């Protein structure tokens, strides 16, 4: 196996592990971290892509894409952490409540009591 394929495989594995973590971890900080890691995995695939196709020529396009992707990830992380802090401020816990909180007339108080 050549190094480029190894990068690619590593990228796919990292993406999938991070996706699993983002779906299963309950703590909001872990979720945000996992989503960041998932982005990193995808970036690794993108960076390996041109060397796999044309090993002799450098392709600037994936680098531009990854750079843009990093900028997007910074903005997304900042917003996600900001909203997470507000969730903690409102509910006292860094978790999302299980399932959909049915507002059967009683609104937030029922959800609050069940926590």
């Amino acid at each position: 196996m050549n190094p480029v394929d190894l990068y690619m495989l590593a990228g796919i594995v990292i993406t999938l592990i991070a996706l699993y973590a983002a779906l299963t971890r309950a703590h909001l900080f872990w979720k945000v971290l996992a989503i960041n890691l998932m982005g990193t995995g995808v970036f690794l695939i993108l960076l390996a892509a041109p060397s796999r196709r044309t090993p002799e020529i450098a392709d600037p396009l994936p680098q531009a894409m990854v750079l843009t992707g990093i900028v997007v990830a910074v903005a997304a992380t900042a917003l996600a952490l900001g909203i997470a802090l507000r969730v903690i401020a409102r509910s006292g816990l860094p978790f999302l409540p299980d399932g959909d909180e049915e507002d059967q007339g009683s609104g937030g108080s029922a959800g609050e009591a069940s926590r």
Partner: protein
Amino acid sequence: MTEFELWSTVVIFGPLLASVVALSARPALLRAGLVLGSLSTLVGSAGLWRAVALYGPGRHPLGGWGQPLGIELWIDGFGVAMLAVTALVGALTSLYANSYFGDLSELSVRDSPAGRGARFFAPLWLLLWTALNGIYLSADLFNLYVTLEILGLSAAAIVTLAVSRQATVAGMRYLLVSLIGSLLYLLGVALLYVQYGTLSLEGLAAIGPSGPIPAIALAAMTVGMAAKTALFPFHAWLPPAHAGAPAPGSAILSALVVKGSFFILVRLWFSVYGGGSPEGLILLGVLGSGAILWGSILALRQVSLKRLIAYSTVAQLGYLFVMFPLLIPEPRLWNADAWTGGLLLAISHALAKAAMFLAAGNMSYAVAEDRLTSISGVAHRLPMSFFAFGVGGLSLAGLPPSAGFVGKWLLLRSAFETAHWTWIAVIAVGGLLTIAYVLKVLRYALDRDEAPEDFRPVPRRMEWAAALLALAAMALGVRALELVELLLVGGPFPW
């Protein structure tokens, strides 16, 4: 500079500039931003409509740099139709928002939670508008990714402008789903780039992606976009988020934002992959049917007005996916009725759902509550909002002469032509369930015994905005032919 270049620039940079203007803390500039954003998109999409009708699909190589090195915009009938409906819904919702947040716009209350809504709704919404317009004009996979992320971030931020704990939690969940969905899409983009070394939709369509890696890429992108479009069974995040946002935010999220990722799905499956695989199309149709039935049943069971409308969005989005298998009944054959019918439903849903959410916003604005029982008798105090909700709901249910009727009729006709009886049954049952939950709301609102006591007067503009949207949904059915012609420019396979 061609007409395509001029108006596509106006339609994207207008709302972007407006969003920067609206970031200012001065109420006058907030209003100026909303006016600038509305005018530029209305005029720009009208200009693009004219250009597409005259010359067919067009392109705009930004800065003179075309593909593959530069970024190109692509303008066809489908994109322009979505731009135009976004402009109409967006302009009327902006008018509504101006009054909805208006009594708070003494920004001395900036630090209070309510003041935050008044301060940040306009810039976020204008940014969201920029992203939507960008999606509808994008010609390459990566530009779609960037606009999609701007859309997702600004939409989640709008949900959290509401102060309640549920809205904050719903906004957090929405943001997480949205980010994971975007990254799954980017994973697909990366795999396609590995295989073909191009991002251009047109270039990929010319190659005709096939084989295992493109198939995995399509699957990843489809799951990501389906999660963002809240296709059953990924719909659980939608009702709390759409119901939790402030009223104009609910209208925008339900009417417009979910259509952005739907648009990308249509582009991918048809324009790029040429129909994908028949099994995949049927699977999407089955999930759409599940959405119609399950969403409608849950809508019927809701006790809160905005929740009911949000579940109705889950159901109505299902119709858009029933279009997928009907559009390609056999390989290499596409059905024009299914194409125009399905997209007319998407457009009429945007108008009708915005009308319903704004009307519901008026009712709960008046009685300061959102439970169905608390709006009893409100029809006698707010006849115009009641009318808007009713007309919007009937358009949703597909009663003539609404646009929903024309769309459903075309979709049914395409199913008859190809003898797809299952889809016909689903479309019919879904229509009956829609009437049932719309009537449930109307019955509460018409209740004469309990007139609401604490009644806050609703600004006239808020009533007018909802009523005009409902009228547009009805009137569109009368003038559907122009829209059908527009949608056929380029069709599902523009390249």
